[in-house]
């Protein structure tokens, strides 16, 4: 993309595109002869399709084709045995309510939508269960190990501790709900050449998945995804409906666009799985933890397994010699979940960080003091030193900014009329990942630098961060640097997930810049120029319009010597209304301890965004199913409550901003997950401090505050 009238080098490089409407998201590409796909979905939860009547739809004005298992459009990868059982349009089996069973393709969106309403299916129904709580409680239901059991020291040591707590925590299903609806444009052309415009967190992953299903070489597939309207994890895989759209384009020989509905966003593109967790904590009377037990059940689907890191944090976050964890997944008849921001760690942190607060209360200690007292010096799980950890400083800074000294340790102490004020704190932690990526740098004699990598930007500001890394190293102004991404033909990079992009791709940018500089220095030396000569002069002197270098970069042995994590501390002040039960978050302070801050403006926004997501997780978000029918009942933006502007107070963000000496050349660690992880517990802890009510089931809606009061 071109530059952009930057007023401040820290502004987003694509800001002008986004504020003028020029940023093109997948559904906005004009292709000659574009057609529109609309899905027909199952109205039962489990069973088989017995008949599917598509005649009326086929005859409706503008309809080009109706695809379903009846005509099985060609997908050679689906014709092989094994693999994923969710082979769209290759099965008559129904695994969940709302499963796509047909796609109507027509020449306008309105016609396709109307014709889809004419497709009639009948089913052979089978008994089903969409109720996760029931599946967990039922001894006969299927349960699978989600992660190997972990034990350090004595198992369940908390049970014999001087002070102990044991509590159960519930999380409902949450739905990612990025603002952009999911979908894809597929354009299958003669000779098996395919171009797709995708909503994806990984163009290379999308390319690979499609190649695998359609058995064509990856080189034949061009994936474009320059702008992505949010993902939060749901675009980390290529969903069956995307495959279906490619099938449709191949079948009719025209480009097909699919944009699913907001209702469909709840069923067919993943969710944060529901979880039931039990935490046992033991401590001595001095406030030292002596036992941590974390047992979790997570939701998965019957047709595909999903696991995540729900119990990871308990293993290393607190100094404790006796720790054991267990993580079990339990299938229900719903669509398969997928990582949602903070993923399993955010689920686990709600339970663990609530329990830590409960233990501090049981000990009559300030929860901040209790945390500091149990802050680990080393990673006991990996038996390694931390590469970089400044939690105590972060606690101090955040406490000062939120006004922690105003807090009373006795719950319900701060009352003004009907409003009760409370303060809460929690910690978030996530593995500081670094993968392998390649970046090409093209340094031009006109003074500009182009960097290319097949990474993505779902919102955090990837291009901005990369530009700032290069700008600093190359001493080139940000507006002379262009970072190209979201294109599968660029040098390979991993999907954007797990807070790894800045660390992974940024390292490759670093390495390319270092290589470019040394090449320029060599050229300068060879042409008898000063070693500090400007690269433009060096290139001109050598009659070179540009030089081009590609570098692959990945982590080395440092990861065997150090335990690497990003940390966040969340402080929340709430006001709870005694009569209505409404919780208002009054102030938020989030402190990030994630190494060097490369891009201060976008980094701050990411922390702010995580806090907003955390408010939703804590107070408003829950995807509700009527288990009699297996159907979502609040599958829209009016009834599934994503926080609105009025829910959010001013948010203060502070960064420790010290380089991690080992992680990567920038000393920078990821932040996307820690911005959210733990946040919901800070709210729950603040609500407890305000009211004396411990809510262990999210979201904390007004009815739960009023219960038993």
């Amino acid at each position, binding site marked *: 993309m071109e530059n952009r009238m930057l007023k401040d080098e820290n502004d987003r490089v694509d800001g002008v595109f986004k504020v003028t409407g020029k940023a093109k998201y997948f559904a906005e590409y004009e292709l000659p002869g574009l057609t529109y796909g609309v899905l027909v979905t199952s109205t039962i939860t489990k069973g088989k399709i017995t008949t599917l009547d598509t005649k009326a739809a086929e005859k409706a004005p503008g309809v080009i084709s109706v695809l379903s298992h009846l005509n099985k459009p060609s997908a050679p990868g689906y014709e092989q045995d094994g693999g994923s059982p969710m082979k769209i349009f290759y099965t008559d089996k129904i695994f969940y309510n709302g499963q796509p069973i047909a796609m109507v393709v027509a020449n306008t969106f309105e016609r396709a939508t109307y014709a889809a309403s004419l497709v009639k299916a009948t089913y052979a129904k089978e008994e089903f269960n969409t109720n996760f709580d029931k599946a967990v409680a039922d001894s006969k239901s299927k349960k699978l190990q989600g992660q190997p059991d972990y034990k350090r020291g004595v198992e369940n040591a908390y049970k014999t501790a001087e002070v102990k707590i044991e509590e159960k925590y519930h999380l409902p299903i949450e739905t990612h709900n990025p603002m952009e609806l999911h979908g894809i444009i597929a354009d299958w052309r003669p000779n098996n050449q395919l171009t797709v415009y995708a909503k994806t967190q990984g163009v290379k992953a999308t390319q690979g998945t499609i190649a695998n299903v359609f058995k064509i070489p990856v080189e034949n597939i061009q994936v474009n995804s320059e702008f992505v309207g949010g993902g939060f994890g749901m675009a980390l895989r290529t969903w069956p409906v995307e495959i279906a759209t490619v099938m449709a384009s191949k079948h009719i020989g025209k480009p097909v666009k699919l944009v699913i509905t907001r209702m469909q966003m709840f069923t067919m593109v993943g969710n944060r799985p529901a979880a039931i967790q039990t935490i046992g904590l033991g401590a001595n009377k001095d406030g030292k933890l002596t036992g941590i037990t974390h047992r979790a059940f997570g939701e998965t689907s019957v047709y595909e397994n999903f696991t995540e890191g729900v119990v990871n944090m308990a293993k290393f976050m607190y100094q404790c010699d006796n720790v054991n964890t267990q993580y079990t997944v339990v299938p229900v008849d719903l669509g398969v979940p997928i990582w949602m921001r903070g993923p399993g760690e955010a689920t686990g942190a709600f339970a663990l960080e609530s329990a830590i607060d409960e233990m501090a209360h049981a000990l009559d200690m300030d929860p901040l003091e209790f945390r500091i007292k149990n802050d680990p010096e080393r990673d006991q799980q990996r038996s390694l030193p931390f590469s970089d950890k400044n939690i105590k400083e972060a606690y101090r800074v955040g406490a000062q900014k939120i006004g922690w000294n105003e807090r009373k340790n006795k719950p319900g102490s701060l009352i003004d009329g009907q409003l009760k004020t409370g303060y809460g704190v929690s910690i978030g932690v996530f593995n500081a990942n670094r993968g392998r990526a390649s970046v090409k740098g093209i340094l031009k004699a006109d003074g500009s630098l182009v960097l290319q990598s097949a990474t993505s930007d779902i919102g955090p500001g990837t291009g901005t961060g990369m530009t700032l890394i290069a700008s600093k190293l190359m001493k080139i102004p940000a507006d002379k640097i262009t970072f190209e991404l979201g294109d599968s033909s660029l040098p390979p990079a991993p999907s954007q997930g797990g807070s790894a992009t800045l660390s992974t791709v940024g390292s490759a940018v670093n390495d390319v810049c270092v290589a470019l500089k040394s090449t320029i220095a060599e050229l300068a030396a060879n042409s008898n120029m000063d070693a500090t000569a400007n690269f433009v002069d060096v290139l001109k002197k050598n009659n070179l319009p540009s030089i081009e270098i590609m570098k692959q970069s990945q982590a080395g042995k440092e990861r065997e010597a150090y335990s690497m994590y990003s940390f966040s501390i969340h402080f929340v002040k709430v006001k709870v209304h005694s009569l209505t039960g409404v919780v208002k978050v009054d102030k938020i302070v989030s402190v990030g301890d994630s190494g060097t801050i490369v891009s201060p403006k976008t980094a701050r926004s990411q922390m702010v965004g995580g806090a907003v997501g955390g408010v939703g997780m804590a107070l408003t978000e829950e995807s509700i199913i009527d288990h009699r029918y297996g159907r979502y009942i*609040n599958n829209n933006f009016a009834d599934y*409550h994503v926080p*609105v502007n*009025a829910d959010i107070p001013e948010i203060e963000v502070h960064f420790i901003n010290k380089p991690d000496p080992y992680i990567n050349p920038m000393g920078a660690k990821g932040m996307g997950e820690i911005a959210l992880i733990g946040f919901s517990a800070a709210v729950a802890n603040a609500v407890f401090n305000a009211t004396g009510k411990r809510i262990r089931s999210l979201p904390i809606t*007004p009815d739960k505050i*009023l219960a038993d009061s």
Partner: protein
Amino acid sequence: MINFQYLRTTTSKSALALLSKDKAAKFLAGGTNLIDLMKRGVTTPEKLIDINHVPLKQIELKGDTIIIGALASNTAVAEHALIKEKLPLLANALNAGASAQLRNVATVGGNMMQRTRCGYFYDTEMPCNKRQPGSGCGAIGGFNRMHAIFGTSEKCIAVHPSDMCVALIALDATVVLANQKGERKILFKDFHRLAGDTPQLDNNLKTDEMIIRLEIPINNLAKNSHYLKVRDRASYAFALVSVAAALEISDHKITDVRLAMGGVAHKPWRLTASENFLKGKEASTANFELAAKLAMTDAKGFGENDFKLQMAPNSIIEALTLAKSKA
């Protein structure tokens, strides 16, 4: 959505004439609810009569009565100086509903015709007696957290979703309706219906009629009024419960009082017994508590909405307290 026929008209007379030719046709005003319902397949009219150009947008004082045309937008009413001064309760209720964008388009008449937000009503694959008489009520025994506690029937426990209507019932509004033969007046409290055995009928508007205007008598309640909306997020959400409270106080005694609730019944719910109790009494917390208790006499929960049995009286107390404190 079927490609319905679209007609446009500029007078109420021609609108009614068009309607009389085809009772299955529907009037299209702001469309913020109707188009939503059509997209979901909940309603499938084959003909829409666009009445947005019919001149029924007046907001004016005539004698002791405030006249509001049926096609005045929610924003136009809420922002009108006359309404802010004389009927702040109505302005506040309007501003508590929907979003600025929706209020710019949504009309007074359309707001009255707004259908329930019940999830079973909206999902054409679920049972709902309101959408499909005889199919059953999904909410009874299902997800009924948002549902009614007053005046429920075995057929339907949906709630009326409007905030505006809660204020209007409290303000003793009158609705003027018309058919081809002429106009008739109906008290606002008689406009909406309880579900009873005919939950498919939200109100008493006849199939050949249109809403023309509202007539609201001016009152002395402007100073001490409050619209309290309790909801799951701070804005842009339907009410768990809402309370319209207005007091006229002289010498610490309540000389006039209006109390109505939203989110608790199939229609805006006027708390007449509580009003009668409060009249002539001191505007004290103790009396507010007694009035709130009285309001709950016939309340009944359905499981997930049992919390409303507590939230509703609490909210009545809070709304009365806030109304009083505006003095």
